[in-house]
């Protein structure tokens, strides 16, 4: 077990280059530490590298260079199978498009990762029920994803992510496909799970209403960490921080920020 001071995730000088000449720098030298209990939002405009960074941390992709440690373990030399097993036992995922298995019921979807981690049937059923209760969707347990609304599906996905109690849950734009009210409710749920159960969340968003719920905000820009804010640590309030960087108030890099706000407002429609 990692000690409390040791970061759950340590990203050191990570680069991710795309393109035939590796000319697209999706990430250019990112350093990040995620510690236990974080409710961390990766913010930044579209194309800033949020998905790329979450994919790398989730061991779904390989960095072009740099190091990613999960629970103190360097992941650079792991093969496909070892990476899959590390994901299975240490990471939970929530996706923008819910990504439930369409042929499985809500219950079975939540149970699936527990089967993978080799838990016995009784334990599996208990954990599944607990998780479905925790996200308030227990009455829909026997429904298939197609019979559920987007918000309900995403709650099932949250239950799937938390059921096995992984030390950290990664969520790339978890509210991206939800209307603002449902999205806000989902973030409330995640925050509740973070505060009541101490589950660490690392999620991305470009929606100010979502970002303002975060206890720690990391702003990415052009593949690099532009700014950071942490509750209780930084002197200026979150509101000012978000205001400066997300709502188009006279900022440090005014023009970029304005552009981004326009585009993100368009996307949210």
């Amino acid at each position, binding site marked *: 077990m990692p000690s409390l001071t040791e970061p759950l995730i340590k990203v050191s000088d990570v680069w991710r280059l795309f393109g035939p000449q590796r000319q697209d720098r999706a990430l250019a030298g990112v350093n990040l530490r995620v510690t236990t209990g974080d409710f961390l939002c990766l913010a930044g405009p579209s194309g800033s590298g949020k*998905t790329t960074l979450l*994919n790398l941390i*989730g061991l*779904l*992709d*390989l960095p072009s260079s740099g190091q990613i440690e999960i629970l103190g373990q360097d992941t650079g030399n792991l093969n*496909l*199978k070892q990476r*899959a*097993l590390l*994901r*299975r*036992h240490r*990471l939970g*995922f929530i*996706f923008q*498009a819910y*990504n439930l*298995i*369409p*042929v*499985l019921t809500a219950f*079975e979807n939540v149970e*699936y*990762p527990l*089967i*993978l*981690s*080799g838990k016995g049937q009784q334990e599996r059923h208990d954990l599944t029920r607990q998780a479905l209760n925790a996200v308030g969707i227990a009455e829909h347990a026997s429904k298939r994803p197609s019979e559920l609304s987007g918000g309900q599906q995403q709650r099932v996905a949250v239950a*799937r992510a938390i059921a096995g109690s992984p030390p950290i849950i990664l969520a790339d734009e978890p509210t991206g496909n939800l209307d603002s009210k449902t999205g806000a409710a989902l973030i409330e749920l995640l925050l509740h799970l973070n505060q009541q159960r101490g589950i660490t969340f690392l999620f991305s968003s470009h929606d100010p209403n979502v970002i303002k719920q975060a206890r720690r905000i990391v702003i990415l820009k052009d593949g690099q960490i532009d700014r950071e804010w942490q509750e209780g640590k930084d002197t200026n309030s979150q509101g000012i921080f978000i205001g400066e960087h997300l709502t188009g108030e006279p900022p440090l890099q005014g023009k970029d920020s304005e552009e981004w706000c326009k585009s993100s407002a368009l996307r949210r429609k």
Partner: protein
Amino acid sequence: MKEISITLKLAFRNLARNRRRSLLTITAIAFALACLLIFDALKNGLHQKMVDTTTSTDIGSLQIHGQGYGVNLISLTELPKPDEVANTLRSMGISTFAKRLKATGLILAGPKSAAVVLHGVIAKEEDRVTVINRRLVQGESPTSGKEVMLGQGLAQAFGLTVGGELTIMAQDIFGTTVTRRFTITGIFQTGVTAFDQGHLFLPLASLQSFLDAPQMISEIALSLPEQDHATEANLLRQSLGSRYQIRTWEEIAPDVTQLIELNDSTMGILIAIVFLIVAMGIINTMTTITFERFREFGTIAALGVTPTGIMRLVTAEAIALGLAGSLIGSAIGLGCCLYLANHGIDLTTVTSANQYFSNNHILKAVMDWRQVLTTNAFTMLTAILAGLPPAWTAARQNPAQALSHL
């Protein structure tokens, strides 16, 4: 393992989800398999007919001769100590054999003459090996000294009927030409034209006395169950030693063996083509399935399913398709085979002049369980192999890329 049951659950539900496509694939596999089973069984039936006709007309399953026996019968070759051979056979539990004396002769009737093979046989023994006495179309088998029966082709060529007479000329064992007149008691028709035009039967003792060769035997023919005769031939070779020559019907009638082999290889090519088509069908279906579900594979990879696990998931679907196709195809194929085994197909219009269909013109299916099992096993193997390439693609995919797949 728990992962297996969820793998199967996913495979079946995904197949059920695309019911139309799955059914289409299964139907194609089932149809191909059923056709192969039916073709195979009919081919077996044809081969059995060919073998039956070949062995039951004259040859038997295998024959024993004295060493140096020549097929053309230019000179008489004696089979030494026939009684000892008969005892050896009985001690091996074989009672279905017939002692014979065969020689060449010339029949003369009026201005006509023809070379024939003279068969000296003991009717009682011959009935255990061949059907010749059951192929009489007129009269009955010869029983006493100066009686013969001959093939219908021969009788027609000479204008002879039952009760008529003919002269036979031959060389006795000393090389002296001998002639004798015989009365025709019966006319047979085996359907094998060459046989009906050139063979003539008379009691063994009668031929022995005609050729001045009392007690002489030139051949013992055995009738054995189909599978056993090669083993028995080897046993006989060992126990009888070098004074005897033992040949199976395959060696005596290589043309039939070759025809069967030719049929088998034609069938083999047909099978290969059918399996290739089945394989392409499955590959096509599996490739579609994998591409449709790329994002899903990315998702389960994120949840911690290993590449092997993903391979298993895709392969399970291919196996399920193959299995369903196999079961349905076998049911249909065997059902048809069962019907054809009982009723057969009437091939009168295309086989009336075919020697192998001389008994009747009904081709019946003959099922061989080993064949049924291998055909099924091959279907499954094809399904699995065809599922592997798409399974491999799905398993090796970078999960991040799979997740961004639309």
